[in-house]
Structures are given as structure tokens and as C-alpha cells.
């Protein structure tokens, strides 16, 4: 008993937290992330890795079902918290940590043996039997079908798996599901849909707190947040931590000078990294027109390097660095006014539903033919603001190509 208490205490020094963001709850996620970091928690990659399940925002029915499935997959000890608004984060995290140590965990574990059988039937467990002639009477192992087959780009018949990417996935846009067909780890087709919040709300109706994109500091923070996610996807956690710190500092309204100093340091580090360029170069190339209509800045597209590679993922993360610095320097307002001619982007654009939709369409189009790693870089570099879509009609939409 003493030993197990000691173990529980030690374990609680470094809990692993899996964060689920509801579209439109970016601010809640940021606060929750900062609060979790303060408690010594690290971000988990999957359900098996997680002790804490943190839901930022108020999810709708579909998203709640997804959260429940992840919750059932967590091995335990486990704790789940729902954080509806930024102010509630600190208390909820403290409470969850206490419950992780608490005596209820063994009882919770004792009640669960088989989360798979206890859950709902698989979505098309029975449905996909129709394409096998002997499928009707045959009991498939575990109730699951084997992979389908489809031609690949060379015309070979190869196994193809249907994989939903998201919504519970590290450094992935809120509430987004991209249904991909993969052969090996190569995406053949992709299609997106959104799992929304409980009460669909327009992007502007939540008040300043829930919409971090307001004001130059908030907009700079938005760029840095996107950068942190891209760095996470690229597998550079140390740089991602740096970007996240700067994001929080910029958002909190701290004096711009020290933030800009930190940003310059990050900027140097990233631009010097050849390995990062290898990871992002030539991925997700947009035409100048597409880039403009999707709210990406123009000045970066005119850079010498991008003339060679086009408006790729590298151009976009460089653009975020440049933009964030300009916004912190107070140039944001002037630039926004000067862009009335439509030549560049203006501040609110990326929170338009049409822009978010265009970015998602571009992402699924560009993901086809890439492996999962590259596909994820493409998605992270386009940074679609799914919160902007949450208010609009939630009908699935996507493009396909082989």
C-alpha cells in the first residue's frame, strides 16, 4: 500500500495528456496546454500513452462519441476533464491530477476488461462483407474485415486500407477528420469532414476570449501556434516548445521586445536548419493565386527561394516567422490597411469560412500520392482554421484523386 502510494505520487510528476480540441476553442486549448505544462504534463501521442484526456471546448454528439472511444482505449490510471472555457482550466487540471493518484483507479480498472466488445458495433463491420462472395456466413477474426484491394499508380492490385486521420491526433486541426485510403503508407485518396461543437456558433460570436486571433498580439500568436504544430509534425519537439512559449507570450500581451528577441532566436534556428528544409521543401505547393485567395502573405511568395520551389510548406513557415515578427513590431495595422487593394492578405481572412474551406480542399488534394509523413506536413503547413467552419453548414466535402 505504501509502495503503491509512492508509485502513484512519482507517476503524477509527469502525467501524459492527450488533448482534444473542439473547433472554435483554440483559446481554451492554448490555456489548457500552458496549464498542463505547468503541472509537468507532457503531450501524449496516442490513447495507450495517455493518463489524462483533456477536452477543450464543448463537443457535439459526433465528437463526443470519438472522445468516448479514446477514453475507453486508455489503459488506466486515467482521468478525463472537459474544459469549456479558459478560466476553468487550472482547477480542472488540478482535480484530474488528484483523481489520477486517488484510490478510485483500481476500481475503475476492475470494471473494465474488454473495451472493444463493450463498445458499439464497428461502423461497417457487417456492411463491407458484401464484396466478398463467402463473406455472409464467415466469421471474421475480431469481427473485422481484411484489407480491400485496389490498383496502385502502376496498375498493380494492392491492399488498400481505409484510415480516418483525426480528430484525436497530435498537432492536427480541431475536429477535422480526413478519411484516407492508403496503400502501404501512401495516401491514394483523401476526403475531409468536420466534427463540430455542441452549439454551432459563428466565428465572431464567441467573444474575444474564445477567439485568440484578435489584435496584433493574438494574430502573431496564431502564426506561432501554427508553427509549433508544424514543428511537432516534423518531429522537432524542442523547437516546437520554443514556438509555443513565444505564442503564449505574444498572446498574453507581454511586452513585444523580449518576445521579438526570442522570435529572432527561433527564426535563426529554423532558417539555418537544413534538415527542416528537407522535411518541408516542395510539399503542398500552391500557385500564387491559390496562396493569395487562401490568405497566405504575399511578401514571402516573392522571396528568392520560393521562386524556385513555389509556395510550398517551407515558404509558409517562413512566412509565419516574418509575419509574426511584423505583427509584434506593430506593423500589422498598417499592413492590413494597405492591403485593401487585395494584393496581400488582411488580418481576419484566415478566420473566414471560405478560406478555411479552400485550405482544406487544397490539403486533401495535395495529400494524394504522398506518404503519411508528408501528408501531415502539408496539412500542418496549411493550418486550416476549423473553428471558422464550425458555424457554417457541416456537410462533408472533399476532393479525390489518385
Amino acid at each position, binding site marked *: 500500500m505504501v*509502495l*503503491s502510494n509512492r*508509485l502513484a505520487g512519482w507517476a503524477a510528476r509527469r502525467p501524459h495528456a492527450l488533448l*482534444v480540441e473542439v473547433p472554435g476553442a483554440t483559446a481554451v486549448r492554448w490555456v489548457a496546454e500552458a496549464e498542463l505544462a505547468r503541472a509537468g504534463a507532457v503531450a501524449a501521442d*496516442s*490513447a*495507450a500513452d495517455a493518463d489524462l484526456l483533456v477536452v477543450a471546448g464543448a463537443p457535439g454528439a459526433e465528437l463526443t462519441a*470519438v*472522445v468516448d*472511444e*479514446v477514453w*475507453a*482505449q486508455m*489503459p*488506466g*490510471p486515467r482521468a478525463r476533464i472537459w474544459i469549456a472555457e479558459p478560466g476553468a482550466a487550472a482547477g480542472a487540471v488540478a482535480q484530474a491530477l488528484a483523481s489520477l493518484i486517488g484510490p478510485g*483507479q*483500481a476500481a475503475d*480498472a*476492475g470494471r*473494465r*476488461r*474488454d*473495451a*472493444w466488445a463493450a*463498445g*458499439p458495433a*464497428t*461502423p*461497417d*463491420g457487417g456492411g*463491407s462483407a458484401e464484396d466478398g462472395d463467402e463473406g455472409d456466413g464467415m466469421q471474421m*477474426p*475480431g469481427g*473485422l*474485415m*481484411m*484489407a*480491400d484491394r485496389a490498383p496502385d499508380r502502376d496498375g498493380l492490385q*494492392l*491492399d488498400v*486500407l*481505409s*484510415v*480516418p*486521420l*483525426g*480528430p*484525436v*491526433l497530435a498537432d*492536427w486541426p480541431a475536429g477535422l*477528420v480526413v478519411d484516407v485510403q492508403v*496503400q*502501404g*503508407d*501512401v495516401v491514394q485518396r483523401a476526403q475531409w469532414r468536420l466534427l463540430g461543437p455542441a452549439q454551432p456558433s459563428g466565428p465572431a460570436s464567441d467573444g474575444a476570449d474564445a477567439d485568440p486571433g484578435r489584435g496584433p498580439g493574438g494574430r502573431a500568436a496564431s502564426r506561432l501556434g501554427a508553427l509549433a504544430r508544424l514543428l511537432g509534425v516534423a518531429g522537432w519537439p524542442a523547437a516546437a516548445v520554443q514556438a509555443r512559449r513565444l505564442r503564449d507570450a505574444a498572446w498574453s500581451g507581454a511586452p513585444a521586445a523580449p518576445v521579438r528577441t526570442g522570435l529572432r532566436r527561433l527564426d535563426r534556428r529554423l532558417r539555418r536548419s537544413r534538415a527542416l528544409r528537407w522535411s518541408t521543401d516542395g510539399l503542398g505547393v500552391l500557385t500564387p493565386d491559390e496562396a493569395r485567395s487562401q490568405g497566405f502573405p504575399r511578401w514571402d511568395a516573392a522571396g528568392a527561394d520560393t521562386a524556385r520551389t513555389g509556395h510550398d510548406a517551407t515558404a509558409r513557415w517562413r512566412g509565419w516567422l516574418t509575419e509574426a515578427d511584423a505583427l509584434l513590431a506593430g506593423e500589422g495595422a498598417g499592413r492590413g490597411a494597405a492591403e485593401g487593394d487585395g494584393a496581400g492578405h488582411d488580418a481576419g481572412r484566415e478566420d473566414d469560412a471560405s478560406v478555411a474551406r479552400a485550405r482544406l480542399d487544397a490539403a486533401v488534394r495535395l495529400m494524394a*500520392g*504522398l*506518404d503519411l509523413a*508528408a501528408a501531415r506536413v502539408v496539412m500542418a503547413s496549411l493550418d486550416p482554421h476549423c473553428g471558422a467552419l464550425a458555424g457554417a453548414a457541416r456537410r462533408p466535402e472533399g476532393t479525390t484523386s489518385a
Partner: protein
Amino acid sequence: MVNVLAMAAVAAAAVALLYLVHRYTAVAAAPLRAGPFLSGHRPAQHAVSRFHVRWYVLTLLFLAFDVEMLFMYPWALVVARVGTSSVVEMFGFLGVLMAGVVYAWREGALRWS
């Protein structure tokens, strides 16, 4: 040889000990059966499948070199004794293999995405 087996036994014992300790320290000794992590969805298919490795051409190239290693280790022992001819012969052989690498590169075997 005895020592190698002894180390294998120590390693197995260390792993077994951890598993034994875990039976008593874990919140539940029996594993939880759950679906594989799929971003919060339940899979409709088994993930195990004939995985399309697009780098399969590269594996053939690798195999050529790997077989070559069979000669490499014995060769390493006699280089100094046999002298110049051993170096010329081995690096002539390696040169042929490298020509294969260059050819494969020109054919695009080193890039697949």
C-alpha cells in the same frame, strides 16, 4: 559461449522480473482489450495487410551489398597479409556495386515520394 548464454538468461530474467513486478504494481494485472488507436474511430479492417513498400527496389540493391559483406569480414582479416592485390580486388568489386547504385539512382530507385 557460456557467457553469452548467461547474458541472454540475465536479460530474460530482467524482463521477466519487470513483468512480475508489474503484476503487483499495476492498477489491474490483466491487460485491457481495446481497439487499436485510430484517432478515436473504430477500425473496420485489420491493419495487418500486404504493405505496399515503395522502396522495394532499394531492398534489392541493399541485398547485393549485404551479400558482399560475407566477403568483407573474412577479407578484413587478411588485408595486411595478402597486400596490395587484396585491396585492388575488393575495391574493384565495390566499384562495380557502386556503379549499380549510380544506375539505380539514375533510374529513380532512391526516391519514391
